[in-house]
């Protein structure tokens, strides 16, 4: 199983919520030649229509979000350090000691904290709260920093995509550039039926892009293609692992924002079993995704979430297994053929 170079390109792209431009550009270039129509709506979502061999009675939409978690500059102090808030849910324990890139010019910076030698015994090992963390860009002064960036500028973890281990990848933003990648690859295939594709904005701050797509497109069936947290790490008891790398596509029956319709779940399981696609259920109610807004819009859709299991999600080093990504891709193709509810 090989991933095309598009996956690295998407993961390395800069795209904190509301600043998805670079990701959007890559996707538009990728899909425009292969889709029947592609439009960018008023708030930046991409909606693509792929003509299949036949029309479908029900409007089927695949949805993935383009944005990633990041940081926003809130204050620059007298020495030129930039203080920030998080955009999307980033656990503070993964922030210190990391490289970031900031703003339009992708200025490199580091987030750290005072050296271990200077910490009091009480401070050792305790992650500083986000308010206390700052970005160091190597500024000479506040005025110097202000010539390079300003309050409101956004940052992300620095791109550092790598293949590692046996057929695994590590990168920032696998959530949800994996979904974007899988949808791009699906659009490039010949499909038996018409299908719609949404690449959405601002998922990490409340699924705001998807809400607009749900209203504007009013799909009947929506498949959310996501990355979901895998806690299959040393020291975590089996019942708290949520899902496991290498065990295939993750199907959700419930998360913090959605109860998925049983019929859709059963249909997906059957599809997997009939087509030899490896799947697993998400065994924990955790997280949430765009299914919520599609399910609760003015034209409620039947929803399902198909995800790749990803360790250390929302960190600079998310880890995914390439074989899982392949299983999700296989499943999406089958869903495009059969729809969500048969």
């Amino acid at each position, binding site marked *: 199983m090989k991933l095309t170079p598009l996956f690295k390109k998407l993961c390395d792209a800069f795209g904190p919520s509301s600043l998805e431009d670079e990701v959007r550009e890559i996707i538009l270039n990728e899909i425009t030649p292969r889709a029947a129509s592609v439009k960018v709506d008023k708030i930046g979502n991409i909606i693509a229509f792929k003509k299949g061999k036949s029309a479908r009675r029900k409007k089927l939409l695949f949805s993935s979000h383009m944005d990633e978690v990041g940081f926003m500059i809130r204050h620059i*102090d007298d*020495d030129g*350090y930039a203080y920030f808030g998080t955009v999307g*849910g980033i*656990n503070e*324990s*993964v922030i*210190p*000691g*990391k*490289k970031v890139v900031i703003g339009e010019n992708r*200025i*490199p*910076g*580091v*987030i*750290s*904290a*005072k*050296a*271990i*030698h*200077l*910490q009091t015994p009480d401070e*050792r*090992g*305790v*992650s*500083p709260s986000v308010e206390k963390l700052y970005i*160091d*860009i*190597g*500024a*000479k002064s506040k005025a*110097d920093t202000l010539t*390079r960036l300003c309050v409101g500028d956004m940052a992300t973890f620095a791109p*550092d995509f*790598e293949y*590692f*281990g*046996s*057929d*695994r990848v*590590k990168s920032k933003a696998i959530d949800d550039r994996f979904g974007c990648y899988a949808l791009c690859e699906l659009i490039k295939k010949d499909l038996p039926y018409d299908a719609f594709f949404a690449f959405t904005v601002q998922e990490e701050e409340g699924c705001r892009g998807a809400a607009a797509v749900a209203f504007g497109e009013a799909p009947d069936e929506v498949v959310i293609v996501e990355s979901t*947290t895998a*806690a*299959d*790490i*040393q*020291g*975590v008891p089996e019942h*708290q692992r*949520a899902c496991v790398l290498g065990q295939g596509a993750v199907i959700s029956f419930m998360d913090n924002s959605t109860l998925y319709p049983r019929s859709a779940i059963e249909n997906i399981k059957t599809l997997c079993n009939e087509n030899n696609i490896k799947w697993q259920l998400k065994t*924990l109610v955790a*997280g949430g995704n765009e299914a919520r807004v599609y399910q609760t819009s003015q034209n409620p859709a039947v929803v399902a979430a198909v995800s790749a299991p990803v*360790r*250390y999600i929302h*960190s*600079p*080093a998310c880890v995914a297994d390439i074989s899982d990504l392949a299983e999700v891709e296989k499943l999406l193709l089958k869903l495009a053929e059969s729809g969500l509810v048969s």
Partner: protein
Amino acid sequence: MERLYSLAAELTALPSVSGFEEAAFGRLGQITDGLFDEVFTTPTGSFVGVVKCGRPGAGRLIFDAHLDEIGFIVSQIHKDGFLSVTNAGGVDTRMLSASAVTVYGKKAVRGVFTSIPPHLKNPDDKNKKLELKSLYIDTGYKEEEIKEIVKIGDFAELYSPLFRLENGFIAGKSLDDKICVAQIIRAVEKLDKSKLSCDLYCAFTGGEEIGGKGATSASYAIDADWGVALDVCNPKTPESKNFLDDITVGGGCVISYSSTTSRFLTKALADCAKKHSLKTQLKGEPGRTGTNAHYIFTSRAGVPCTNLSVPLRYMHTGVEVVNLSDVFEGAVLLAKFTEELGDIKK
């Protein structure tokens, strides 16, 4: 400065966790090829290059920069392939979750420190100390695969290639103390050997992060007359206060007056900087400097030793920050100091 940057980039990428410095000897020999009249290594992880002045009975000066860096040693290989590690040197666990590392087994493999997923965190744990024993290295290999590559006792270190910030600032891992190894190499490159009246021993020593064993033994072997320990020191950061606030990155290298170093040699170094208009900062260190100066000073029957430091932010992390102009001016100072050492009375 470009030469310094490329030296620093290469040196910081060399594997040399405390106790495993030998791994860096070969490449260090290539980097310094032609620079020294003589080279030797010690069994305690030190690499020493000698510049001879050619005068019989010349005094001996040590420049010491430690070659080792903080890191990890594999202590257990778990089911599913996760590695437990123990620390070599003072590791700041707050910096590790979701950080990349390189594990040096039969081959070098990339790893990632695990981070505990938020859904498994208890809100009451917010102020709980993160201990190294609750973090693991994920190498992306299955248990049977990783056991073919890595064994207990192998070492690992942070993975963080050097990169540039603004204004000549650079960031990366193990600038403590590879930046001083680079500084010494630059100093020797700039040295006017015709002015030399002492033999210069450049000691890139092992084991500083675990208690100066390399400097102790190298200094004993060299039997020097003077020593300068080159290391890094903590400067002002947003969290610092009082005395550190006077030390800034970009303000020049730091000369420490300490009760545990040689006053006259420290003053000679400060005077030399003043004479050549080289930017330095002064620091008062009432006790030990926390550098190899202590070990060199107490070696044999005593070696007058002082300490010059590169101010460095976020010591012992993968994103240590220094300014190249500090390092460069410090290298010039070391060259001038060496050339003029003959004028200093023992």
